[in-house]
Each structure stands twice: as C-alpha cells, then as structure tokens.
C-alpha cells in the first residue's frame, strides 16, 4: 500500500480485522468471496532471465508460470479489490445499464422464475435502484476507499473514465 510502512504481521492483522468486521456486519457472502480471493495463489510469468537460468538447471521442458503465495500486503490488497468491485464497479454498471435501456432504474427489477412463496429469501425481487448509489454516496465511498489506495495490484484506484 502506498503511504504506509506497516509490517507483514500488521497487514495480516488488518486483514483479519476486516474479516471480523464483515462478520459482525453480517456480510458473510462478501467475507467468503474475500477469503477465496486472498487465498488464491499469484501466477506470474517468468522473465527471460529466469528462463535462461531454469534452462541451465533442468534438461526437460517445464512451464513458464511461477505460482506463489500472496504476500500479506497482497492478501489485504485482494480483499480491498473485492470491496472495490462491489462498492464502485457494480453501482456504475447498474447505472449505465439503466441508461442503455433508456428505462428509469426504479422500473427495472430482477425476479425469479417460480412462485415467490417457494423462493429463497435472497431471491426476493431486487430493484435495480438498490444497486445504484447517488452522487453523495459515491463521493463517500471513493473517499473511504482512497485510504487503501495502492500503487499496484487489485487494490488500485478505479476511476470512471466516462
């Protein structure tokens, strides 16, 4: 993360703090998504120098990918990446969809294909407007997320280029 010099242990503590706060808030699905993202290994392409070094070490052919664990900072960045997708990208997408269809957001909803009385609670009709934020909310979200701005990786700042 830019503008910080906290240790690996502290990044992990921050990550665990985020998970516990999500659990307290009842955001179980997002928490699970974050855990999956954070535990996924990083796949990197090897450099030509690496390739030259490896070709001297082994006789047979091996793959070019290097698979490694995330560093503590990358674990937290992956978590913030998930939050950015949900809090920034999704509302913009929902808003653009309404514009493309030329239909007011209040008039668009998602419903399941069977009797509502049989539906799971989370399948209840969802109005598109629930996915959209107003300008004030958008500014607050951007300001809150800017505290985690990174120089690289999934936590990088997303700007709306429209």
């Amino acid at each position: 993360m830019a503008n910080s010099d906290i240790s690996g242990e502290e990044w992990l503590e921050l990550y665990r703090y985020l998970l516990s706060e999500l659990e307290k808030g009842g955001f179980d699905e997002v928490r699970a998504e974050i855990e999956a993202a954070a535990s996924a290994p990083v796949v990197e392409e090897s450099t030509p120098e690496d390739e030259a070094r490896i070709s001297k070490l082994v006789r047979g052919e091996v793959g070019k990918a290097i698979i490694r664990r995330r560093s503590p900072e990358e674990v937290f960045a992956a978590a913030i990446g998930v939050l950015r997708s949900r809090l920034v990208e999704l509302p913009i997408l929902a808003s653009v969809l309404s514009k493309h269809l030329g239909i007011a957001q209040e008039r668009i909803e998602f419903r399941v294909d069977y009797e509502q009385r049989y539906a799971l609670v989370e399948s209840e009709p969802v109005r598109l407007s629930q996915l959209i934020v107003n300008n004030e909310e958008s500014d607050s979200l951007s300001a809150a997320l800017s505290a985690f701005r990174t120089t690289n990786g999934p936590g990088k700042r997303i700007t709306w280029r429209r």
Partner: protein
Amino acid sequence: MATLNQLKQAVDNLLGLSASKRLLRLNSNTCERAYEAYVLSLCAEAVLSAGGAATLTGINTGPNPTTVVLRGAPGDMASRAQDFCFIDCVLGGKRFEIHTDVVYEGQSGANHEIDVSICEAAHAQDVRQSGRAPRTNKYLIAAIECKFYESTPGVSLARTFVGLVKDCSTNRLSAFVSNKSSGGLDSYLSPTWAPKPFTDLTALDPQAERRFVANVEQVLRQWERSR
C-alpha cells in the same frame, strides 16, 4: 505514513457507510444478474447501431412494459410466472430476440443455461407456443457467457463454457464476457477454437464497450445478409 490503527479506522469508516451496508448485503447472484443485464443492454445498443429496432417486451404484457422484469435466476424461456422481458429486434427484414438467463436444450439433449442469448424470433415464438425448451441449433445466433468477477479470474468458468459451445450447432458468435481478466484466462481463450473473449468489458471502460458492441453489430449484420 498510515499506521495500523489508522487503517483499521479506515476499515470502520468504509463499512460504516450506509451505501456500503446496502451493497455488501446483496447476494452475488444479484451482481451476476446485473452484469448479464448490462451485457443485454449492450447487445441492444449493437442492434440500434446496425440500424435495427429493439423493443423491450414483456412476455405477458407485450412491448414497453411499465416494469422491466429481468430474470433473477436461470429459467424457462416460455415461463409466464413473471412478466419476464426480452428484447424484440428487427434488422433489415429479419426478426430476432435477445434473452437473459434462459435454459436451452443442447444438441446432446443436455440442458444449458445461456446468460445472454440471441435467437431467431420464429424459434422463440415456437418455444412460447409449445412450452418446450429452445434448442442450441441453427436458430441460436449468439451465446454469451457473462461473469462479474470480484477477484482475479481463473479459467474454470471459461472451461465450462467451452463444453457448452461444443454442444451447440455452429452459431455465429460464442463469446466469453467478463469485467476482469487474468493472464491464465486470456491465454485459455486465445486459440481460434475458443469462444471470443471480451475479458475487460466494464462500465468503467467505454472503449471496451465499443469493441464489444461493434463485434455484436458485425455478427448481426452478417446474419441479416445471410440466406
């Protein structure tokens, strides 16, 4: 320099916002459906840029319904349980429809959910009349798999979609569309036999939107000129 305590405070600030509480409570299904609907809306744009007409149509109420009901889960194209909407399109002298989240019967007889599909209107009408499933045959013009990734994508969904495409007769466009890419995903979709990849399609990037719309438009123009 941010300290650990300052960053914890920043977490509290973020999760304390009312917008965060509302958006984090959504289930991932809703995010997926919204992304599919977004892709549907881009397909409608492609029809308009090709010079065609696209009309939102409710299965029960007809053109321009008061409430646009989109599928919150995969279902039957003929279902009238809700006033599900599709886009009724005309291009040149030909009619076709754009649907989201409809279950098709593959060439093998297995069923497949296609996130966004474009099929000939006559076939869709047969399906609505008969109550049977649509087929992934020559009437299916395009099959589009959509995925709203919240983290780095892997290849498993693309692998599954490759299997689905093999169970279709040759349609004009098979595309894998997602909001994020990864080296692995791009490599997997790079061979010519793979579905056409649009792995950067997001509302944050109008250039990627234009590329997708132009591709769909070209497919529709070619289809319209055929036969």
